[in-house]
């Protein structure tokens, strides 16, 4: 499942996409994120349950701002959560 966390507003599209089929729940991205944006949550998508990585609720409506420090206007873009993921389960839309 591709979970798109974030939003679109008048200023643009801001989504962190987590592919739960690729995510193995290792939690490296959680450690890599300097702003504590990510967390491991209970899978509420089925009655079986399990865990999965997700964007924390309190960041979902402001990731444009939460992720701003990792996205300088100029210079090389190295997004820690994306780089830390061995299975390429994380992408950013902006």
């Amino acid at each position, binding site marked *: 499942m591709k979970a798109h966390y974030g939003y679109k507003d*008048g200023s643009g599209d801001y989504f962190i996409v987590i592919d739960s089929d690729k995510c193995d729940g290792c939690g490296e991205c959680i450690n890599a994120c300097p702003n504590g944006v990510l967390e491991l949550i209970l899978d509420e998508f089925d*009655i079986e349950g399990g865990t999965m990585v997700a964007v924390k609720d309190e960041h979902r409506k402001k990731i444009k701002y939460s992720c701003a420090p990792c996205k300088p206007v100029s210079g090389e873009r190295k997004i820690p959560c994306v780089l830390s993921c061995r299975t390429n389960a994380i992408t950013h839309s902006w």
Partner: protein
Amino acid sequence: MSQITTQEYWRWPEYRYTVPEKDWHNAKILTAGIDIGSVGSKAAVMLDGELYAYAVIRTGGVSEETAIKVTKWALEGTDLEIEKIHQVVGTGYGRVNVPFANRTITEIACHARGAHYVYGPTVRTVLDIGGQDCKAIRCDERGKVLSFLMNDKCAAGTGRGLEVFADLVGIPIQDLGKVSLQVEKEPQPVSNTCVVFAKAEALALLRQGWSKEKVAAAYHAAMADRITDLLTRVGVSKDFVITGGVSKNDGIVQRLSRLLNVKPLSPKIDPILAGAIGAALFAKALQEKHLGLR
């Protein structure tokens, strides 16, 4: 009873229904799904996975009270009581506040599952536009979620955006869609996405002498454009359905079909109930698991 004389254009009526020919005493599995949304709360009661009774009310200040109220109202006139229901699944924004729920399931999964019941198993894309959010879900033939997004940050593209507009032009919210279709030629969409700016733009158009219908058309067109953008992010595959309160707005539905070149399926049951029905179906799966049937 005193009659309400002040008109509030955003206010919609509450309702309930019981399927007359069904008797719960004959059912093996009694389940309920309670969908506590930010604006509306819905309860669906199902007998062996078939809809039996439902109610839709406005969400009050205390979610727990709303959950009890909507369920009791759904059961009104039947002699079924909450305690006799085998499994209850809570969903929606206030899902953790359903005091008698056995489990919570995210509204994304419930909407996908519920859409399969309401529209049939050919459904692959579900668009749910509620009072305060907009969800796009792509699912497989079993109603399992493949891709989803939810936008609850921004009022644009939600029912709230329409409420703001209804208030501005003084047209009841339930008539807004129809009014927006009363134009000979579709005007240029409102250029601002942000509801605050779009409202100012709409006001400027009204002052320029545009009719309410034409401004409504421009506003609805902009909203449909925005929703289309969101949908393409998760991908659109057939069959396509629209649920949530805004599915009742023909102005949005018709424009979306045009933009996406897909005709949404017509529901067999009020699609506002999709989340609650999905939750009740998850509750059935839960009970089957409990009984060792799966």
